[in-house]
């Protein structure tokens, strides 16, 4: 070892640099001072690098090694310069060669590590780049915060109660709508179990709904009666659904609860009113039915015994007495007609047939068959649009056509009666029109003609008991439609009927 060191520092065979060539004092010292200053600086640079590496322990993989190698390379360079200065006095050219060889080795090694590290170094983000990224992230965060704030504002302003709860069933958030609806302030209810909003018997129902929500179902419009803080009941419609965190793990359940107390109350009132109306309608029907039945008995007595009187005694009575009998018989016969009409009218609702799909075309043809005689006699003509299929009582539809068509012919003017049966499709209903060229009516009577026993003309000119239109109106009413008349004196009359299009089960799936 010592022999090797001795060999390295052996100076034999070389003169000191001062004595090799014509060194001026100035040039020699320029070299010496420069080399020593370079050496000093090259010793300091690795220290700075070492410090840097100590501080930046986050540097990715090849960089610390590259830095260390670079430090070693600079140290070697520094040593070669120091030796250059020493050689002015001691010609240690052998040691200088060894150090240069070491420097060469370290510098190539550094290069070998540096080359593959260059692309990685290039991939490292520049501070500007990083800054831009930070800015973008900040903007993103701000947007998210704004969006969250918007949502929060919506939740806060909602009239509906918006409540969330954790998986433990304890309430996590409680919006002002919930406060108004249930009366609990947020600090009274947050962390409490949500089933305190629900009366005991309803808790199973809520628990089941929450469980279904946890399984991923959305419970829509669950109608129930819940409890306010003061113990009063509140009718609600609740939508319940679960939410998850970004990894898709179930996080909790939210409820949007709407107060439907007033709607429920209106519904109940409407239902009560409908039931009441139905009851009174049924009573009225019953009344009309019984009255017309029981009225027949005494009337029959009058008719029957007038008949017997006429049969047995007409030849023995004078003309005047027979006239009296005629009037009595006529009056009684008309009374019977009225009672029969009343009976028919009272049966439209209660004793009508059942509903089904009815081809109005068939109903119209049926009516035409029954009216054949009337058409033939009057020479009336009729043209008809294609008629639709509706949900109705077939017999009653035929009855309506019969009444309206018979009316159109009965109230004819000078001209030969001509009737148009028109049909127009609307979004939710059909409109039928029976248009005639008859005597028409004064528009102010448009309502009156549909009333029972109301006649606009004396009996001697137009027969009938004034019930046809009343029955038509009642039938159309039973079918959820409307009937009305338009026209003018001498301008003919048009009867309009609407029939709802809904509830054709085979054709329409919407209810």
């Amino acid at each position, binding site marked *: 070892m010592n022999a090797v060191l001795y060999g390295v520092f052996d100076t034999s065979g070389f003169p000191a640099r001062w004595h090799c060539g014509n060194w001026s004092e100035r040039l020699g010292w320029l070299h010496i001072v420069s080399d020593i200053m370079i050496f000093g600086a090259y010793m300091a640079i690795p220290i700075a690098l070492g410090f840097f590496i100590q501080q930046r322990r986050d540097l990715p993989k090849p960089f610390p090694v590259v830095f260390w190698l670079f430090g070693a390379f600079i140290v070697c360079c520094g040593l070669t310069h120091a030796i250059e200065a020493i050689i002015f006095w001691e010609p240690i050219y052998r040691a200088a060669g060894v150090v240069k060889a070491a420097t060469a080795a370290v510098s190539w090694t550094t290069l070998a590590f540096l080359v593959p590290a260059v692309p990685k170094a290039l991939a490292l983000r520049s501070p500007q780049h990083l800054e831009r990224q930070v800015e973008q992230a900040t903007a993103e965060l701000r947007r998210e915060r704004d969006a969250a704030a918007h949502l929060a504002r919506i939740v806060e302003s909602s009239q509906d109660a918006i409540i969330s709860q954790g998986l433990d069933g304890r309430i996590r958030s409680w919006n002002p709508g919930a406060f108004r609806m249930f009366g609990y302030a947020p600090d009274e209810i947050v962390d409490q179990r949500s089933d305190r909003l629900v009366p005991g018997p309803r808790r199973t129902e809520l628990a089941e709904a929450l469980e279904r929500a946890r399984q991923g179902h959305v419970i829509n419009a669950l109608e129930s009666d819940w409890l306010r803080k003061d113990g009063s009941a509140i009718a609600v419609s609740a939508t319940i659904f679960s939410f998850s965190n970004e990894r898709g793990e179930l996080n909790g359940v939210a409820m949007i609860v709407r107060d439907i107390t007033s709607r429920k109350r209106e519904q109940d009132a409407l239902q009560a009113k409908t039931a009441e109306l139905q009851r009174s309608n049924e009573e009225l029907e019953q009344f009309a039915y019984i009255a017309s*039945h029981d009225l*027949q*008995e005494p009337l*029959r*007595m009058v*008719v*029957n*015994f007038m*008949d*017997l009187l006429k*049969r047995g005694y007409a030849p023995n009575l004078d003309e005047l007495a027979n006239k009296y009998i005629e009037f009595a018989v006529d009056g009684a*016969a008309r009374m*019977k007609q009225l009672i*029969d009409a009343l*009976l*028919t009218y009272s*049966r439209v609702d209660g*004793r009508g047939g059942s509903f089904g799909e009815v081809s109005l075309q068939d109903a119209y043809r049926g009516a035409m068959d029954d009216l054949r005689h009337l058409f033939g006699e009057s020479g009336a003509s009729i043209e008809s649009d294609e008629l639709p299929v509706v949900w109705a009582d077939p017999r009653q539809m035929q009855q309506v056509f019969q009444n309206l068509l018979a009316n159109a012919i009965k109230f004819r003017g000078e001209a030969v009666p001509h009737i148009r049966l028109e049909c127009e499709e609307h979004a939710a209903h059909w409109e039928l029109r029976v248009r005639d060229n008859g005597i028409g009516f004064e528009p102010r009577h448009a309502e009156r003609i549909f009333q029972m026993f109301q006649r606009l003309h004396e009996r001697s000119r137009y027969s009938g008991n004034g019930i046809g239109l009343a029955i038509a109106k009642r039938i159309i009413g039973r079918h959820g439609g409307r009937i009305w008349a338009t026209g003018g004196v001498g301008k003919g009359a048009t009867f309009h009927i609407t029939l709802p299009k809904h509830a054709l089960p085979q054709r329409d799936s919407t209810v």
Partner: protein
Amino acid sequence: MTVQLANDGPVVMVDDNAGDLFFVQRCYMASKLENTWLPFTRGIDFLAHLSRVKVGEAPMPALVLLDLNMPGMTGLEVLQATRAEPEFAALPIFCVLTSSTDPRDRELAVGYGATGFRTKASNADEYIAFFDALTR
């Protein structure tokens, strides 16, 4: 429906309305039938009569006109009680309806075994024609 009287027994009419009973009786008198006229104003009286027929104390009626619309025992109940006895299974019973417009009473009466129907008529000719058609 043509029904011929089965025997010489009485022609019975059950109706709570004395006026109807009297009117139909007058029509019956004017017809060609000569059987006895036997009116009842209550279903229960008619059934009492039938129990006497059963034990041979009274002759079997030839025809019954039964008003459906009666207070107390209704015509349908009388019809049901009568048909429940095998002896009266063949007895011609015509149900009398107040008006012809109610199909339900007809259906029920057919179900209980009515032979036919009469609507309470407003003139004598109809009844007379009805009775005349029953002559043997």
